[in-house]
């Protein structure tokens, strides 16, 4: 459209070119809003049969709510394990790159951590399935023997290692670069004067970090963790490959539990009719959950934009 206008000449053609170009730019922006809206609408239309169907016909035979609840809980458990592991490590790695590592190698080290984000999720899934899960079996047996009285470590431990905890660890590896890169950006923006003032008062390096850097970066860290949560909630392949699925159970070291994304990926290829609608409804639930999490994260970033500098 615009290339045709380029060839024509004359003042009126130029004015038309301006109109066409600005119209196209506006149209593209509106298209994005419409797409997001369409995601919600089309998912809702395709999911509708689930809400109107007889509860007995839904998988599990007790209505959509009791079908979706266990896998929502499973999704949240997997994401929480991932965050519990990735948050402290991610923040520590960000601190290492921003405040501990020698200046000269800090940049390349940061790139190394970003490489973690570049590896496709299916490769993490394959790695979790074929390398990590077998390697964790002795650890799970130890947990079951020594800490088995705590429900989440209830035995007998899985012999294959394909458990919720393994899936959570793989998710943690995938979330880590998100938390690290966002936190690092913010740590580097701490006013130098604050840091130097703390050091001048005789603070040790850790005291400087805990009194000057961390309070300054708190909103940024929170939003980084929320974005990580959004990623962990929606991650599919790692869980689909690593977790040996089953009903909702408290133990994290037995096979069992399921997440929404993995439920869809594992069942969608063979699904038709009402089952298809069920899975799309599950996708809709996942969409709403991640949308809320991401909107909260973005709102926190936007509110502190003037001094945090995170995108």
């Amino acid at each position, binding site marked *: 459209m615009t290339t045709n206008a380029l060839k024509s000449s004359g003042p009126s053609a130029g004015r038309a070119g301006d109109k066409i170009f600005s119209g196209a730019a506006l149209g593209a922006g509106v298209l994005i809003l419409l797409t997001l809206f369409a995601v919600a609408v089309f998912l809702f239309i395709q999911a509708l049969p689930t809400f109107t169907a007889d509860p007995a016909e839904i998988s599990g035979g007790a209505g959509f709510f009791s079908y979706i609840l266990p896998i929502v809980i499973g999704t949240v458990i997997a994401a929480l394990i991932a965050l519990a592991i990735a948050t402290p*490590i991610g923040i520590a790695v960000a601190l290492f790159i921003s405040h501990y590592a020698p200046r000269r190698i800090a940049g390349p080290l940061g790139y190394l951590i970003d490489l973690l984000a570049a590896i496709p999720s299916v490769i993490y899934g*394959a790695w979790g399935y074929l390398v990590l899960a077998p390697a964790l079996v002795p650890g799970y047996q130890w947990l079951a023997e020594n800490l088995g009285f705590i429900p989440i470590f209830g035995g007998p431990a899985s012999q294959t290692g394909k458990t919720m905890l393994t899936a959570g660890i793989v998710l943690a590896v995938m979330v880590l670069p998100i938390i690290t890169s966002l936190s690092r950006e913010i740590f580097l923006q701490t006013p130098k004067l604050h840091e130097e003032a703390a050091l001048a008062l005789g603070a040790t390096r850790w005291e400087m970090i805990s009194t000057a850097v961390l309070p300054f970066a708190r909103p940024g860290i929170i939003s980084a963790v929320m974005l990580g949560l959004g990623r962990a909630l929606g991650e599919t392949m790692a869980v689909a490959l690593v977790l040996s699925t089953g009903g909702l159970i408290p133990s994290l070291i037995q096979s069992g539990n399921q997440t929404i*994304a993995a439920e869809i990926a594992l069942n969608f290829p063979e699904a038709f009719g009402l089952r298809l609608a069920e899975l799309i409804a599950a996708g809709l639930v996942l969409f709403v959950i991640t949308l809320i999490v991401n909107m909260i994260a973005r709102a926190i970033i936007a509110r502190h934009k003037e001094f945090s500098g995170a995108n």
Partner: protein
Amino acid sequence: MSLTKTTPQSETPLAPRRRNALSKGRMPGWAVPAIAVAAVILGAALSTLGGFAVASFAIYAALLFVIGATVATTVIEGKRRGKNALALYLIYGAFILALIPLASVIYTVLDKGLPGLNMHFLTSSMNGVTGAVDNQSVAEGTPVVGGAYHALMGTLLITLWATIISVPVGMLTAIYLVEYSKGGPLAKAITFFVDVMTGIPSIVAGLFAAAFFGIILGPNARMGIVAAVALSVLMIPTVVRSTEEMLKIVPNELREASYALGVRRWRTILKVVIPTAISGIASGVTLAIARVIGETAPILVTAGIASNINLNVFANWMSTLPTFIYYQILTPTSPTNIDPSIQRAWAAALLLILMVMALNLIARLVASFFAPKKGR
């Protein structure tokens, strides 16, 4: 570093052993390495008690070192410095811990993928490769038959179509945001929802495309272009963000100089603004491609899985490298002899990682080679 570890030398050479006012109450320089050696030896001893394993040895040694060094610093130098030392060890430890999965993944992919990545793998499809073929090749010890040519072509075609859809939409949106909108409510809404779109789970994007085409073309409309639409949903926000950032750093003087010559706005944008920012935009687009090329879940629900070569994105199911890996692992071609399938999966994984890394490298090279020239 300098705060905790400097141990000023004794100032009087006559009495080197005497501790002066500066080094008083500080750990001597040999203390931390000594604790490290002790921790390694003790850790080895402890882990041998329960059958030696590298993992338990590393855990014991690390724990002993952190506890030992922290306690020593606390006792000798006081509580504040003890805390400082603990934070230092934990932060260094966290970094090493974060590198373990990266090293393990890359080692595994190289170790298991290299044997299978050969010309046969790159140039043949899985058409006609059945469990019987795999069983035979295992029984006779012949090389594994079947490859990922169909999946490679599927990946390239679907990604190409996703790029064709996303780049114009993403770039025009960024142009609208930077050049036309004056920070109005529409621009704010677009910026906000582009950010939100970045966080859409990939499987939901796949479901959207499947639902959209399902309503238009009837259920089970699975083909390459549906997958390309799903990938565009994931790719557009990345393109918008990077283009927006790049357009924002184009100096206003360039635009004003162009306007002053009587050039119309759209020509200014096409001939002045975009050429100035093109290196950054190209590198952003390359990174966006690298992001979607490895997506599995959206392909799974939109393009299905195929074992034959299909070069038409507008009809029939297609396979891509990620879905190829997924199905080779989850449902091996021969359930009794899974090794050929696993080998094919790792070879495809290596190929995929090489493609992603190459794209990342290209993005960096593009950004540095085609950066606007400084000076005249």
